[in-house]
């Protein structure tokens, strides 16, 4: 008897569990999925007429909110769908990083370039994305927080994908920022002070830097006798070695040096700047 009782209770619990879980995801997932699939093709063909036919663009806006609800449930599948849309809406430079979904979305930009961003970004977000591309990149933490908040704030949803699509470019952007604010003395001090490499390595590194500088000096004095391409090759090789040596012990310094790569090259290759070194 007790066995049947417990079995009965377990069965009830299982049924109750199914009853709790089944209703909630269904509507959200269905709406979100259909919106995403249906939305892009019409926007590609004729975005304006369709929004007029149905109760305006508001219908589209109402359908978008469920999207973020779908995203957390199936993060892997949802992320690629969102990212490419924003990539095209914000910056075409990132497009090559996400090839699969780009092709369906590109048509809208061909026909009416001004319509595409608005259809993707939704009324309120439309003015925001273009200028906020760079800021969004600098705040990765916000991207993590956004998906959960998106449920309550539909317009923010457009910003979330922007941030997700941005990370690949983030390193390049930060590198350029680092390059613009290059502090050679600080880098030198950090190299001297780091514990990641020993004394011998530091001396060897200094030897190689001195040697390269000597070659640059020869280049600037003798109207480019060693070709600049050769110097660039040597320079790149040296930086690669430095990176190899530092990356395990002091990855931040290695990253900083690699980030300053172009700025340092700018100093070395420019005769005026080189003379001031």
């Amino acid at each position, binding site marked *: 008897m007790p066995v049947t009782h417990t079995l009965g209770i377990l069965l009830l619990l299982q049924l109750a569990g199914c009853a709790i879980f089944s209703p909630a995801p269904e509507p959200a997932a269905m709406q979100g999925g259909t919106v995403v699939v249906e939305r892009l093709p019409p926007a590609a063909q004729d975005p304006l007429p369709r929004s007029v036919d149905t109760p305006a663009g508001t219908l589209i806006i109402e359908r978008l909110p469920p999207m973020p609800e779908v995203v957390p449930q199936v993060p892997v599948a949802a992320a690629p769908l969102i990212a490419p849309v924003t990539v095209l809406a914000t910056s075409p430079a990132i497009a090559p990083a996400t090839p699969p979904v780009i092709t369906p979305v590109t048509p809208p930009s061909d026909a009416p370039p001004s319509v595409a961003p608005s259809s993707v970004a939704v009324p309120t977000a439309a003015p925001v994305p273009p200028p906020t591309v760079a800021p969004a990149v600098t705040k990765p933490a916000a991207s993590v927080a956004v998906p959960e908040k998106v449920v309550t704030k539909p317009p923010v949803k457009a910003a979330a994908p922007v941030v997700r699509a941005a990370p690949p470019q983030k390193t390049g952007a930060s590198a350029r920022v680092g390059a613009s604010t290059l502090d050679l003395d600080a880098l030198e001090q950090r190299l001297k002070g780091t514990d990641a*490499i*020993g*004394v*011998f*390595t530091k*001396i*060897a*590194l200094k*030897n*190689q830097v001195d040697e390269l500088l000597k070659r640059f000096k020869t280049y600037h004095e003798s109207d480019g006798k060693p070709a600049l391409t050769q110097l660039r090759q040597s320079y790149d090789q040296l930086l690669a*070695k*430095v990176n*190899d*040596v530092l990356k395990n012990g002091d990855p931040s310094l290695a990253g900083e040096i690699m980030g300053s790569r172009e700025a340092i090259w700018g100093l070395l290759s420019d005769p005026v700047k080189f003379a001031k070194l």
Partner: protein
Amino acid sequence: MNSKKRDLSRALILAATLVCAAPATAAENDALAKDLNSTLQLLGLPCGQVVSVVTQANRDYIATCSDKNRYRIYLNPQGKVTAEKR
């Protein structure tokens, strides 16, 4: 009794010193091996990993690599780090 105690304490101190000194030396050797490894890497010489180091003089070492290469790495009078294959 006192002399025995003194001997015992000395023996303990000696033992403690040896126990502590051995890892310290090992750590120094590891650091040196790593340093020489990075140096060889910078100089573009094949090595793999430096597995043993023999000190010949101040800043003059013989490094044996995991790929069986042996190098003399030293600081020459001009202040340049030099590596010679042995």
